[in-house]
């Protein structure tokens, strides 16, 4: 326990180690992945000679450790790349150049990240409202019909893959009743109102998938808190049920909800692949799956690192929030 500074330092060191390990794993795994990268990059009807030149240019001949070393060097001090027609400097932290598009991986990530963050943060608000709301209601109305219905609805959300929920929502809301236009990503900076309208359905679809877990968690934690002795004492002293729920029971649910939320937000930044694909949102997840398919290693490694970073970051933020919410907790 040496204060917030120590916490940040320990977390930072841990993050770096985790991310390094992840990058090594990805390098090794993708080294073993089938697919002739040079042929894919060059084009299906490239001649063996052209393929050889592409191999040389992308330095695909280098042994694995050398390629990884260049990658690390790029992150620390930057690298120079030849695209064949020009020389390009990629400043530190350089995550490399995409095999496929010759764009800097960092640039690709920076254009995709706002989309993913827009999707995930908006959906987060919805899933917290839906999930925690349902959880509170069902803890309060425990055993009644309304609780069972709520539980069934949230579970239906969890049990249905997002490509089904999203498509059906889209067909009904946008196609049949035409309540909303078909989603099409509009950057927040261009038009905040259109941004929100267009993201409404994606937010809703993603939130429906996640809400059930929050509902279960909130409900269970609240029930546990409500069963505690001091709550019964409050009740005995005539404290109203609403006040108990608001002041005490909800507080008990706060910690697990924060933790689960951190986990979900972190992994959804790169994991909302299906939602992004279905709604045509040009985010990290969609790009990542594409990069995996064409074995575009620099893009895959770069994106996985960014996603890993968000998971770690989200968890750290959760710890801080939790400490703020509950003085008794010590940051470790």
């Amino acid at each position, binding site marked *: 326990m040496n204060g917030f500074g120590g916490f940040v330092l320990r977390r930072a060191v841990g993050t770096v*180690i*985790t991310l390094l*390990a*992840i990058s090594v*794993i*990805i390098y090794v*795994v993708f080294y*073993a*992945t089938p*697919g002739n990268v040079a042929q894919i990059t060059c084009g299906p009807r490239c001649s063996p000679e052209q393929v050889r030149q592409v191999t040389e240019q992308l330095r695909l001949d280098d042994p694995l450790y050398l390629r990884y070393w260049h990658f690390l060097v790029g992150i620390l001090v930057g690298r120079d790349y030849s695209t064949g027609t020009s020389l390009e400097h990629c400043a530190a932290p350089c995550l490399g150049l995409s095999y496929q598009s010759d764009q800097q991986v960092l640039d690709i990530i920076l254009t995709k990240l706002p989309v993913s963050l827009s999707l995930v943060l908006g959906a987060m608000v919805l899933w917290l409202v839906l999930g925690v709301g349902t959880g509170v209601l069902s803890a309060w109305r425990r055993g009644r019909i309304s609780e069972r219905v709520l*539980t*069934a609805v949230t*579970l*239906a959300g*969890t*049990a*249905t*893959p997002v*490509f*089904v929920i999203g*498509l*059906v929502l889209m*067909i009904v809301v946008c196609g049949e009743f035409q309540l909303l236009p078909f989603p099409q990503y509009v950057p927040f900076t261009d038009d905040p109102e259109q941004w929100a309208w267009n993201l409404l359905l994606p937010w809703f679809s993603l939130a429906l998938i996640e809400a059930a*877990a929050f509902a*279960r*968690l909130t409900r*269970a934690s609240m*029930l*546990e808190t409500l*069963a*505690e*002795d001091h709550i019964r004492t409050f009740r005995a002293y005539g404290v109203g049920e609403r006040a108990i729920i608001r002041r005490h029971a909800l507080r*008990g649910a706060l*910690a*697990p909800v924060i933790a689960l939320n951190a*986990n979900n937000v*972190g*992994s959804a930044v*790169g*994991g909302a*692949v*299906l939602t992004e694909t279905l709604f045509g949102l040009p985010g990290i*997840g969609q790009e*990542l*799956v594409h990069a*995996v398919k064409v074995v575009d290693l620099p893009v*895959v490694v770069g994106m*996985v690192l960014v*996603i*890993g970073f968000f*998971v*770690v970051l989200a*968890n750290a933020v959760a*710890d801080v929030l*939790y400490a703020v919410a509950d*003085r*008794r*907790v*010590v940051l*470790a």
Partner: protein
Amino acid sequence: MSETLVASRTPGTDTPVPGASGASRFWRRLRARPSALVAAAVVALLVLVALAAPLLTAVEGQDPTTYHPSLIDSARGGVPLGSFGGIGADHWLGVEPQTGRDLFARLVYGARVSLGVALAATALQVVLGVAIGVGAALGNRWVDQLLSRATDIIVAMPLMVMSLALLAIVPESFPRTVLVTFVIGLIGWGNIAKIVRAQTLTLKGLDYVSAARLSGWGRWRIARRELLPGLAAPVITYAALLVPSNISVEAALSFLGVGVKPPTPSWGQMLTAADVWYQAAPQYLLLPAGALFLTVLALTVLGDGVRTALDPRAASRLRVGTGRRREAKAGETAHSESDKPHKEGNA
């Protein structure tokens, strides 16, 4: 990750169960919950249907792979002929668009794959998660560091990327269903390990465990006799959530083209193929979606029931007045300052 935080991640983690309680009490408590019994019956039925798939389809007189081109309208994209997707005496739930394969047969055979993959993957996740979580908590500092770091890495690694990559690397001749199970299982144990490690640390600090240690019990004996029962409640709760999520992962893998191999049916594969048919042949989508929903609902209710039955405090909550109580609030773990004194609740 701070253990206090993780400890609180799952409700019920703060309620260790002493080894004394025994199975009979568990069953008694479980039987007292009719919803849990219904859910158990549904789960049993689903498993039975999956196991008896060959028998059931034989009764129907169909199999999941034979094409029936005469039952579909080729000119209209292969939509099933007849009302409600071709439901009739021969095909109890109608036929699949484009192929005319029997939907009932595919649904029950699909249950084998989906339930099999999801349950086996969950079991793998639980075994790995418990082993690594307990190992980290009971091991020395270095073991803890190593295992916790490995857990962090697994949690931070995007599941889809690793699944896609692993499924591409392993030779095609390896049985795909087993492979999908392993991939889901091997990638998804991170959170359970975190929960278990935190919970174990909490338990370790508790009086009765300390007492056992002081009385000279070995590490493994303590783990087996004192810790594992205390881990059961949170692990079961979490596992009940993992099963449906594993079914979804299997569906997502199918969606991305790396699921189980055709012509083997799975619910995930059916959902993937069926979503576009929502308007033209709704039953094609509704059948696997309904089956999946039923499974998730039953497992959740059953999970709740089992957890409550395992958890004496929850039981006491059900019958207010039986005074066997224990308090071990999330914040009051070994590593936290506590503003509330520990209450000795172990009767």
